[in-house]
């Protein structure tokens, strides 16, 4: 590392995979920074969106692409779409972020700070997988178990229950088997879990 | 059939393809001698009847080539030519005349290498198709 990043030419770079999967050509970005200027969470990100784009533009240096995959940014991105909406080159950054998340998951390069966010997503989808819909109560419990944040929001639950917003029994759809098959062929197949 | 050497006539425009073929020469790139060029001011000038005349008089294949659209000496003649070729090809095809014997192309004045490739590829194509004897035989007595 003391020599600094090293160019590697003989590999398919991340930017090319992104282009293939999303049609977003990172080469079109000319680093005006408007995405970062408008991003609601840019200040919380390790690499604001324009910098993610630049890391990908320098794809001949694998270490830079790696920084993008290991970034906290890709998990903080809320898909609020404001960057895409204002990008002068009409680059669909939110869609690109999706691909970076998939790559980060597949290559097991998840930023440790993103653990809670991903736990929440997993809990959410588990609920959908088993019932076909989101079972808010179950999901929150699942999330607490995954994240270890047992005490957070403890005070909310009774109130929600009281005003009729929290159900104790999940709603289930009829064709749950199909849902299971859909999960098995997508997320589960990708993650290689039962 | 292996010693068959096709006769190919190239109808080209003066400003792009003719100059492109000049560049091929200046760069000493080699290509098949079976193709001979006839110079026109513009692809727009090329009458489809001339293509028929070439086949009738023994051509096995034809190249028609001019300036790329929008990169053009006479602002739009090649666009008109393109339309004409679309219809002419449709007609030839409907008459059962093998349209692979007419190769249309855009070769600019800078594309010397493309010209050489085009000629060789066309010559090879026509070599595979063989002599256009079916058409040549149409020429009955008393012509010309």
């Amino acid at each position, binding site marked *: 590392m003391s020599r600094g990043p090293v160019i590697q030419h003989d590999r398919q770079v991340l930017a090319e995979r992104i282009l293939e999967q999303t049609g977003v050509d990172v080469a079109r970005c*000319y*680093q*005006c*920074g*408007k995405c*970062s*200027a*408008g*991003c609601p969470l*840019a*200040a919380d990100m390790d*690499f*604001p*969106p*324009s*910098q993610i784009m630049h890391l990908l533009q320098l794809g001949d240096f694998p270490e830079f692409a790696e920084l993008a995959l290991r970034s906290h940014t890709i998990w903080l991105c809320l898909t609020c779409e404001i960057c895409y909406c*204002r*990008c*002068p*080159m*009409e680059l669909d950054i939110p869609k690109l972020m999706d691909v970076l998340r998939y790559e980060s998951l597949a290559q097991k390069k998840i930023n440790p700070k993103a653990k809670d966010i991903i736990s929440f997503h997993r809990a959410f989808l588990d609920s959908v997988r088993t019932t076909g819909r989101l079972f808010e109560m179950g999901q929150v419990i699942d999330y607490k178990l995954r994240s270890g944040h047992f005490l957070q929001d403890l005070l909310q639950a009774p109130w929600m229950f009281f005003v009729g917003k929290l159900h104790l029994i999940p709603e289930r759809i009829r064709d749950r088997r199909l849902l299971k098959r859909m999960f098995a062929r997508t997320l589960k197949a990708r993650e290689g879990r039962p | 059939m292996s010693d068959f*050497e096709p006769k190919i*006539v190239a109808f080209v425009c003066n400003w792009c393809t*003719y*100059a492109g*073929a*000049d560049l*091929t*020469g*200046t760069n*000493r790139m*080699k*290509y098949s*001698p079976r193709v*001979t*060029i*006839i*110079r*026109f*001011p*513009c692809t*727009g*000038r*090329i*009458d*489809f009847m*001339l293509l028929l*005349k*070439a086949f009738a*008089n*023994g051509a096995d294949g034809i190249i028609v080539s001019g300036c790329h659209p929008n990169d053009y000496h*006479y*602002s*739009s*003649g090649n666009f*008109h*030519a393109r339309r*004409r070729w679309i219809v002419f090809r449709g007609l030839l095809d409907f008459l059962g005349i093998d349209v692979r014997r007419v190769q249309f192309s855009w070769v600019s004045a800078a594309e010397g290498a493309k010209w*050489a490739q085009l000629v060789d590829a066309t010559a090879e194509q026509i070599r595979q198709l063989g002599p256009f004897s079916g058409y040549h035989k149409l020429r009955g007595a008393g012509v*010309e």
Partner: protein
Amino acid sequence: MARIGVFICHCGENISATVDVAKVAAAAAKIPGVVHSVDYKYMCSDPGQQMVSSAIKEKNLTGVVVAACSPRMHEPTFRRACAEAGLNPFLCEMANIREHCSWVHEKGEATTNKAIDIVRTLVAKVKKNKALLPIKVPVTKTALVLGGGIAGIQASLDIANSGHKVILVEKEPSIGGHMSQLSETFPTLDCSQCILTPRMVEVAQNPNITLYSYAELESLEGFIGNFKARIRKKARSLDEKLCTGCGLCCQKCPTKKIASDFDAGLGMRPAIYVPFPQAVPNKPVIDREHCTYYLKGKCRLCEKVCPTQAIRFDQADEIVEVEVGAVVMATGFDIKHGDFFPEYGYGNYRDVIDGLQFERMASASGPTLGEMRRPSDGKVPEIVVFIACAGSRDPAKGIEYCSKICCMYTAKHAMLYRHKVHHGKPYVFYMDIRAGGKMYEEFVRRAIEEDGVQYIRGRVSRIYERGGKLIVKGADTLLGARPMEIEADMVVLATAGVANPGAEALAQKVHISYDSHHFYSEAHPKLRPVETNTAGIFLAGACQAPKDIPESVAQASGAAAKVAALFSQDELIREPLIAVVDRQAPPLYSTCVGCFLCQTSCPYQAIEKEEIRGRDGQLIKTVAKVNPGLCQGCGTCVALCRSKSIDIQGFSHEQVYAEVLALLNRGESDV
């Protein structure tokens, strides 16, 4: 009976290394009609040319084929040699056996045979060649200059000073264009008015220049050297000859609150007005859309106060017809206006202004008399944010190209602001600073180093108003793309430079091509930058692309030089390789049936309708006719004509037909 001479060149060894030239010469000699066939080491050398010219004389040749290099190389050489020997130059053809044969094939029989084929083809062609005479077109030595901005002014003065008449047409009431709106100019900070107004006065006083202000081109017909233009002089509603420009009417006009275009909407003007005090001509116009008399039928105050009784409420537009030999397009540009950038509140917040508005604010003759006062409340803005590329380099909301002038004028604006508000703070959001040009980079450095303009690299995402401040949300991409907010008092957008709204319609009117942004297209991006594809029409200034003043002036002088060169001769001489429509003896007159498909296909509008009339004046038929001044000889019409009534000289039906047959029919047949 044809008597053709064939001259085979060795080109040193360039041809003879792979082609058996002696064999080619021998084969050529056997072609019927060939009476002379020789080969020589260098045909293009003096002795080689001498061989051609003596053979023409001795053998009484009716045609010459020089088999050598590409005609693009030496056709003019040999045609000149033929002409000098008394043979019409268009009876000489070149057979290209070098670029198209000896250089591209290996030595061998096939190569020699191909050379023979090429020679035979050209011999067949030249037998069908006809002697042609160059086309002469008379030239009207008056130029029409459209647009009276700095480019049109410069072009007019240069043409007029070379001794030719100029008709200058300006659509606004005064010449001066955008340059007259500017406060100071980069990189010298000259006062724009100070350097421009003397030129405007020169235009008014030059006897060679006829100025039509408040006028527009109605139509343009004809071709190089011979255009007919119709100009609409819009009604000024006053008699220009009587008006002395005293200005009393403007002072007394009761309708005073009309947003002034000249002041980019920041200032007000009356309904009868001159756009600015130094206007040329200094004669007012009545704005009929706002004048009380035209709206309500009452008032006529200006008429009452006018000391020379010059007001003419019933004046109508007037059409003037002029004949000109050349046209200079100098119609300038516009900046992108309106609500195209909602995230910046442009068009919504009054203190978000554009570059031209800033110029008027900074101008000593502007609505604030040069003081920095923001439009909403007239307060001096303490913090001003300048935003570069507002719409430029932005295919999503603006235009994809770089408007070129904004980097420099933004630096100038920030600098001028700092000169006027010493304690003020100017910030510039930019992505790249494009300061290529003499003293340009130095100018930008001066803004940063001496005038303390703070440059921030990044684009602003959004601007919103809160509590009388404009909150500017940006980011600094040099500092980890950190988002930042500036509470500004005023924001100046360097909005994109675009073509004038009427540019497309005007281009169609004069038949010149334009790009997808409606900027006018030059004939060649490098080698013919001031000409259009239409002969006789030239370009000057920002109607071609955004340009700064020095570039506009340089191009205007270039266009003027082209016009002067055109006017230096009484007749234009053109190659006669053009299309002609068949003419026959009565009763047929022409085989043309007048379907006029040729007319729509012609890229040059060179095909006209000709009415053939009998002695009694009765119309017999309408047929096509090619205007030799406009035809460029592409031949698109020739291939389209079903009755083969159009032919093209130099590539005639007979010539190309003979070539095809000769190429494919080896052996001795003569076609």
